[in-house]
């Protein structure tokens, strides 16, 4: 009953979003502002409605209503409450409802702003947001309905349908199938919502970009309005990607964090293009350049958001992430096609209006280096895009689906990433408009010298001989010293001028130019993450062995001894095999680890949980691969030594802080400074 109500409410929000689209267009065409206002209110109304629908779905989840097929698929009685709630996004249809809910909340939030100066944008922002919303709501209504119930027909078959088929009776299984145990990890519970938040918030800048194209108000107004949305979108997408990596590291048991799986890449592509966009909008704001380029980037970002979701959910690519085969593929395809064609047509139509207000005068100016940054990000993006499409292309020409593996991506993107790290150091030193080798050299020689000294220490004291690692470490040292030096210089100058102490100066500096210093913090965090990646990629070692009780295995400085294995049932329906291993480092006992294997009775799935000793220097990561029933006969372990990997996780925390600094609202969020074009438009 309540499920039918939820479906009805959702249907209503679908109709409202469709209405919002037409009302907004009609209002714009006929210059009737009341219609535009009506469309805005209609769109805002979808938020409470979809909130009710989601609430009903959560209610069904926590009250074990297994007569609803979605509830049966994703939960079971033994699951704790928080997992039942988060199962909302554990399956295809529920996650689409959740997506819609986020979309409507963001669209509502953006339409609450004051529109006085940007009235002509409003109808088109409503149109783009509502079309996107209607698409996702429509998918749920027509293809992936989470409210479908089980019915038993007279011959005993159980079918799922929204409404009672003739001659059938309601059917309710006693318990659900439960969430895949692999997904019962804190990182995995927050990972999808973070990605969705990132995806959804990129819709807002896209909506404004399209509004700017349609209305012809192509100055930097749209980028200024959406600046904070872009940073927030970028932050959520980054957190989502990192959590996915952390989950893989903790759960998948191969001691890695990133596998270049098509679905990982599908989420990485909008991030790459979005990061390029985040940088290049700054040039448009400062110099009025690259307007057409920014349009291309934001359209591409939006297309990649939808394309990524499509790849993940349509089954076009085989992947460990693939959702079940689903009927939503063709709808997604049509939506992507229409979006791309319309955006491209608009872009071509407005091409001549998107002219730069300045010329690129120096190849070493800040804007030129930003352009280089963009080219590097786009190159990485093209590598990824090619890799993802390659199976489809090869199938077209050879009839075989050839998948490109991690080595392809690593080789192709490695040098590009290294170049990006170096550029990240140099670019902030250059000036807008004009820089020379001399000015750059003057600013860079001190940090560069420090980096060389640091590198020599790494080579001779750390005994690093791998040439790629040496290049990597140089890039990292150089860029981190420059960035720290920048902080120091600015804080020192300020403390001299204002007669404050250095710490206070540094703090006030952040307050004064949040975007710049937040950005530098993000740069530093990327450096920390790069250190972790270099450590794991270049210095990971592993070994494997079958040990009898009391036997040992050595890996580098570590010696592990197999002490014991306990097999027992837990009270939440699992069977655990838990080994006890003592770890020695350079002959010193440093602790015990407990790698284990949990077997989930209800889903009949095993799960490997590594024993990890984690320090700032390295991780020792042990997996219980196999064991004999009689523990004295032995057990097989796989042991990984992952140097520096913790820097990756600490770096990501710093990245969140940096993004928060950069996105923090300033006292006057809407500076009255507008560029000449905007002034022209406002005077109209």
């Amino acid at each position, binding site marked *: 009953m309540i499920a039918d109500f939820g479906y009805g409410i959702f249907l209503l929000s679908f109709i409202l979003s469709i209405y919002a689209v037409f009302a907004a267009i009609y*209002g*714009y065409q006929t*210059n*009737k*502002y009341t219609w*535009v206002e009506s469309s805005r209110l209609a769109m805002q109304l979808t938020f409470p409605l979809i909130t009710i629908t989601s609430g009903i779905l959560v209610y069904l989840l926590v009250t074990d209503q297994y007569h609803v097929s979605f509830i049966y698929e994703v939960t079971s009685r033994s699951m704790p409450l928080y997992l039942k709630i988060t199962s909302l996004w554990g399956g295809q249809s529920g996650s689409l409802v959740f997506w819609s809910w986020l979309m409507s909340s963001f669209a509502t939030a953006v339409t609450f702003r004051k529109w006085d100066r940007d*009235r*002509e944008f409003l*109808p088109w922002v409503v149109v783009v947001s509502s079309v996107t919303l209607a698409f996702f709501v429509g998918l749920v209504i027509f293809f992936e309905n989470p409210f479908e119930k089980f019915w038993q027909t007279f011959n005993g078959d159980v079918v799922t349908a929204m409404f009672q088929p003739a001659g059938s009776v309601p059917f309710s299984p006693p318990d659900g199938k439960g969430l895949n145990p692999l997904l019962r990890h804190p990182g995995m519970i927050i990972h999808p919502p973070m990605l969705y938040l990132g995806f959804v918030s990129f819709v807002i800048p896209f909506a404004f970009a399209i509004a700017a194209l349609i*209305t*012809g*108000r*192509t*100055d930097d107004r749209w980028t200024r309005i959406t600046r904070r949305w872009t940073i927030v979108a970028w932050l959520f997408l980054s957190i989502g990607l990192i959590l996915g990596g952390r989950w893989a590291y903790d759960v*998948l*048991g*191969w001691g890695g964090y990133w596998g270049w799986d098509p679905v990982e890449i599908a989420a990485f592509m909008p991030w790459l293009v979005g990061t390029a966009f985040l940088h290049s909008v700054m040039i448009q704001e400062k110099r009025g350049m690259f307007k057409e380029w920014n349009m291309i980037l934001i359209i591409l970002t939006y297309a990649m958001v939808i394309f990524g979701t499509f790849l993940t959910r*349509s*089954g*076009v*690519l*085989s*992947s*460990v992430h*693939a959702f079940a*085969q689903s009927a939503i*593929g*063709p709808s997604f*395809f049509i939506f*992507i*096609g229409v979006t*791309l*064609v319309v955006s*491209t047509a608009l872009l*071509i139509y407005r*091409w*001549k*209006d998107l*002219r730069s207000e300045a010329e690129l005068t120096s190849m070493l100016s800040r804007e030129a280096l930003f352009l280089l940054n963009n080219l590097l990000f786009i190159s990485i993006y093209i590598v990824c895009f090619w890799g993802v499409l390659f*199976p*489809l*292309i090869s*199938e*077209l020409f*050879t009839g*075989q*689906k*050839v*998948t490109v*593996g991690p080595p392809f991506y690593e080789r192709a993107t490695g040098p590009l990433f290294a170049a990006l790290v170096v550029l990240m150091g140099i670019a902030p030193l250059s000036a807008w408009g004009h820089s020379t080798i001399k000015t750059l050299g003057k600013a860079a020689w001190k940090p560069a010298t420090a980096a060389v000294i640091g590198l020599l220490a790494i080579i001779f004291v750390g005994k690093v001989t791998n040439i790629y690692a040496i290049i990597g470490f140089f890039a990292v040292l150089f860029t981190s010293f420059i960035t720290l030096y920048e902080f120091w210089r600015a804080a020192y100058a300020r403390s001299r001028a204002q007669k404050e102490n250095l710490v206070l100066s540094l703090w006030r500096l952040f307050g004064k130019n949040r975007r710049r210093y937040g950005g530098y913090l993000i740069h530093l965090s990327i450096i920390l993450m790069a250190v972790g990646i270099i450590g794991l990629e270049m210095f990971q070692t592993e070994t494997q062995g079958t040990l009898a009780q009391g036997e040992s295995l050595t890996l580098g400085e570590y010696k592990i001894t197999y002490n014991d294995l306990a097999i027992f049932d837990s009270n939440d329906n699992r069977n655990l095999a838990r080994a006890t291993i003592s770890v020695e480092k350079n002959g010193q006992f440093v602790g015990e680890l407990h790698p284990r294997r949990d077997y989930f009775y209800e889903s*009949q*799935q*095993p799960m*490997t949980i590594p024993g990890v000793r984690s320090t700032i220097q390295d991780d020792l990561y042990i997996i219980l691969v*196999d064991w004999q029933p009689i523990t004295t006969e032995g057990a097989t372990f796989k042991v990984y030594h992952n140097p520096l990997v913790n820097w990756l996780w600490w770096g990501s925390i710093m990245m969140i802080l940096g993004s928060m600094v950069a996105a923090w609202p300033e006292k006057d969020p809407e500076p009255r400074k507008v560029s000449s*074009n*905007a002034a*022209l*438009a406002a005077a*109209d």
Partner: protein
Amino acid sequence: MQQPSAEPTGSERKGMPAAVQAVIWVLLLGLLALVAMGLKRTQQGTVQIGDKIPDFSLVFFDGYTYEGKNEVQLSDLQGKIVVINFWASWCIPCEDEAAALESAWNAYKDSGEVVFIGADYVDTEPEARKYLEKFNITFPNGPDLGTRISQMFRIKGVPETYFIDKQGVLHYIQIGPFASEDDIHTILDGMLGQ
């Protein structure tokens, strides 16, 4: 509602040249066509239970043979139950079922009525060999070159196992690893009893 107002005044910038526009449209439509094609193939769906499986052949890794040959052709196996298991050395869940498969193979191989075949999906040979060695796999195994066989079965991932009956008709599909060796026995005994 105000109409477009930021029209450039006195701009010497021209619109995009027609040739560039044409290239953009061709690329865009080409991309869409490519994805549409991939989608169409996906929509054809997996092979269904009850389907007659088309013929295929698999060349084994060195050291594996079946009836003295280092290659097998499905059509030569008429009259036998064929169990085809897709796996990969990088696949963690595959490790969960490797021992069970091998043990089940040992239980049936002498009857001569059941053949197990392992098809290695998207893998490198040294890694694959290590994997086979680690689990002492003795039933014939070979690389699924160019993913020809897995394409035919339209597998979604590894491990997946397909049971083909004596008439060459698909009888059962196992997605994901077997929970235990008993499951394999249950399926095969059911098929043998028919």
